[in-house]
């Protein structure tokens, strides 16, 4: 007769989605994309054409009238803010000892992040490059007032 040895403990059941795993993946993926986006941003703003001397209201207004740069800046905004806030969240998780303090800090972080993302998104999409009554020499070349 053989002896049947039971498994010491039954395996844990599958838990629901684990956010830490996706957070970890997000940090790596967004980091790689941000390197490309940020250096592309710096290169076009500071090196191409007249370089830093070209940056004025007209330059920024012109960029944000182009859907390509709207998407570029929007991606940078969202990826960088969530990347940074998640990084701050892990630091808070690592170094706070009291649960109430931790919750307050994490909640504040995500609130600030949400406000900044909403405001930034609004600016990228609703920016008016040709405000009425502005001095003509400050406006981009495509404005009717020019």
């Amino acid at each position: 007769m053989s002896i049947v040895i039971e498994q010491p403990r039954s395996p844990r059941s599958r838990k629901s989605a684990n956010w830490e795993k996706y957070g970890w993946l997000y940090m790596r993926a967004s980091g790689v994309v941000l390197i490309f986006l940020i250096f592309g941003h710096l290169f076009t703003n500071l090196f191409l054409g007249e370089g830093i001397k070209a940056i004025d209201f007209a330059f920024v207004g012109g960029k944000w009238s182009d859907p390509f740069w709207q998407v570029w800046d929007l991606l940078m905004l969202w990826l960088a803010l969530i990347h940074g806030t998640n990084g701050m969240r892990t630091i808070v998780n690592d170094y706070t000892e009291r649960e109430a303090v931790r919750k307050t800090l994490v909640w504040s972080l995500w609130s600030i992040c949400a406000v900044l993302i909403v405001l930034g998104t609004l600016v990228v999409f609703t920016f008016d490059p040709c405000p009425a009554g502005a001095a003509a020499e400050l406006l981009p070349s495509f404005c009717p007032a020019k």
Partner: protein
Amino acid sequence: MATEFEELGAVPSFTVTLFVRRFNPEDGQEARWQDFDVEVHGTDRVLDALHKIKWEMDGSLTFRRSCAHGVCGSDAMRINGRNRLACKTLVKDLDITQPIYVEPIKGLAVEKDLVVDMNPFYQAYRDIKPFLIASDKPEKERLQSAAQHSKFEDTTKCILCAACTTSCPVFWTDGQYFGPAAIVNAHRFIFDSRDEAAEVRIDILNDKEGVWRCRTTFNCTEACPRGIEVTKAIAEVKQAILRGKP
């Protein structure tokens, strides 16, 4: 001047100052540093210096040691700010012009002097099921190729001394974190071709307090007295979790 006879084969000896972190739960005092001037030989280890203190100067000094040869993992302690085994650290290899600071490993409750409560550490080890789980009956040996073995050979070297886990800054503030040692021992079974419960261990470590708390500071790899590449093992477990299999 020394004679020729004394010079031949003589082991140089010198005096070092040891600052030892003392704590006695019964005297109601805070932990404090106490210094001892100890005459040691060039071949002596920090453990020998501690023995000299305990046997010849102050019998109340309390620390753990068992085999005293780097295998049992009892005498991990923080020596000059780094986690090491006292039995594998030669005094002459430290900067002996300065005092040597010896304190208990961090992140676990101190019970007395250099002795800490290891139970939370062992509990994390138990939680990852550190034993072979196989469905077939153990009637003959389970064969494995050298290539299959090489996947987890490094992590079989662990002696559970806790030097890695107690060098981890995440573990210092969050005692719930499984810690490097538990993940190393999970790695040892996850990548073992004879084991059938890799998914179970992967599931256990895919937890809020599991591998994702690792910040890859490499403190654990630097602390390991057995030279295990601990951070690499943790990274391999992260990869296994992303794949869902070893």
